[in-house]
């Protein structure tokens, strides 16, 4: 029994300081991202969420260049990016998509410049990789209070805007008719997302940032259509994938090629994808069964028309 446990939880896992910090900070960040992410997915702003992370990366490289704390670089640039997206964007999805793309393109270009200037100055190309991919095991415990305050801030904005956010996600026209300031709500939400994404980017890297923002939320929304329940599901999934990811990454130190350790980001994204596919499969089966039952009830036939609900769902998803 102990042998099995030792096989799963490699010795030293619970006493290692970096692992403990990674579990606490990674878990907190995943939790915040998952909650914020539910609205990102409902509002169809995954691209913006991902772009804010990449823009944060630009800020991170700027901070690296001037020798400042990367976190402030990430947050400043993500907030500027959020503002620019809102400024160029229009209410329609394609206009928003375009604005996000332009801001992201400019941001990436500037990141290229900063990284180039930074690396020619001190010849440390490794920084590029750390900034882009992040590493959960390089967190410092002294940053935890700052992270906590910012996480609470992001969650508070989302909690305050809960109803108007959902309403304007469903129908902007209805929301404006009811007196919701749609643009202000949109901008505030982008800002909350910018803070959440910067936090996750600086701790777990740009890849994982998008993964924990979108993955758990998208999976949760396949499981349930009720926003409150989806938030709970997303939080559970987000925490689960992050912690299991950390555990596997720690274990993988003894996997081939030996002595390297596989990146945490790989495990987390793989888990996220698996969870999403499973929940997608579950929701699909459920829908098919419900559809078949409805058919049978209406027509008095057996559930022979399995293909029908799929067509309806596909159209409804557009």
């Amino acid at each position, binding site marked *: 029994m102990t042998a099995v446990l030792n096989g799963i939880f490699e010795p030293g896992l619970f006493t290692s300081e970096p692992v403990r910090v990674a579990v606490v900070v990674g878990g907190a960040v995943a939790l915040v991202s998952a909650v914020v992410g539910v609205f990102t997915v409902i509002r169809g702003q995954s691209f913006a969420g991902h772009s804010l992370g990449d823009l944060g990366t630009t800020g991170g490289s700027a901070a690296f260049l001037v020798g400042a704390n990367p976190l402030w670089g990430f947050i400043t640039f993500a907030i500027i990016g959020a503002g620019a997206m809102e400024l160029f964007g229009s209410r329609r999805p*394609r206009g928003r998509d*375009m604005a996000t793309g332009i801001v992201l393109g*400019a941001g990436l270009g500037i990141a290229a410049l900063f990284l180039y200037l930074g690396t020619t100055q001190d010849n440390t190309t490794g920084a590029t990789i750390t900034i882009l991919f992040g590493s959960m095991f390089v967190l410092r415990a002294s940053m935890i209070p700052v992270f906590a305050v910012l996480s609470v801030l992001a969650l508070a904005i989302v909690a305050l805007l809960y109803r108007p956010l959902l309403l304007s996600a469903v129908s902007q026209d209805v929301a404006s008719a009811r007196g919701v300031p749609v643009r202000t709500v949109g901008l505030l939400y982008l800002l909350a997302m910018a803070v959440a994404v910067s936090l996750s980017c600086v701790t777990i890297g740009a890849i994982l940032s998008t993964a924990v923002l979108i993955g758990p939320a*998208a999976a949760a929304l396949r499981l349930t259509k009720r926003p409150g329940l989806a938030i709970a599901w997303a939080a559970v999934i987000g925490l689960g994938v992050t912690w299991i990811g950390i555990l596997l990454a720690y274990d993988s130190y003894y996997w081939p090629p030996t002595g390297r350790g596989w*990146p945490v980001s790989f495990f987390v994204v793989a888990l996220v994808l698996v969870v999403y596919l499973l929940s997608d499969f579950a929701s699909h089966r459920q829908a098919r069964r419900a559809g078949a039952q409805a058919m049978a009830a209406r027509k008095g036939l057996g559930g022979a028309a399995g293909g029908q609900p799929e067509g309806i769902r596909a159209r409804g998803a557009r």
Partner: protein
Amino acid sequence: MFSGIMANAWIVATMVAVVAGVVGFFTVLRGSAFVAHAVPQAGFAGAAGASLIGASTLAGLGIFAVISALSIGFLGKRGRHDAVTALALVFMLGLGALFLSWSDQYASAIYALLFGEVLGVSSNQVLATAGLGVVSLLAVATLYRPLLLASVMPEVAQARGVGTRRMEMGFLIVVALATTMSVPVVGALLMFSLMIGAPGTARSFTDRPLGALGLSIGLSLTIVWIAIAASYETDWPVGFFVGVLGAVFFVAGRGWVAWQRSGAARQDGDGHPATGPVPLATAKGTSVEPT
């Protein structure tokens, strides 16, 4: 500036700009900027994997780009398109991170894959780029009319028997092809900037599809040429100039629209500028309509 290695850079960049202008036109029309961002980055993971096992980078890139494009298309059928794109993107990047952690590649090689190395293009690469570029242009030419219809008015396209799903898949594969062609020479990030900046700007100036397409190619060429010249002079990365020029042009285009609109409003007093012959008018509004 135009001799030796630089000659290759100019040729390759010109080809990439033309393809980016054409493919980007449809990307912007369909609101698929995220896909245009995700597929090249997925290709980057493939390139990292290929270099790990010592295979051709181009093959790895192509295979991963096509796989990610197809899985986005396939999963997007049911879930939200953007969320699925994000998932495919992060999974591919995660794979890339895994491959990189295994390999002993220098970080600078990775930097080149992301940000491009247009100033160090070999003659072999020129041939490969040209071949793939021709294929993607041919694919777009074949799909042109149905793809245009399916992008602007999906309902009408469906009513006329154009399979919007098939067009979606076709478009995704074209993006994957264009990616494979361009990433080894210009990098994953620069390709994205090109595919969005120039076509996005072009849409501000004209409503006619062919006009916008031509303008998109022209702007894309302008951006690339200025960027290479500036990069040659300053030694700064090409990607910086492409990204920033794209944004500057886009803002200029939006300014032009706003100026025209206010002029038209003054002229006929009802605030609605007369729209052109139309087919694209509905779609155009999507990017320029103020709220």
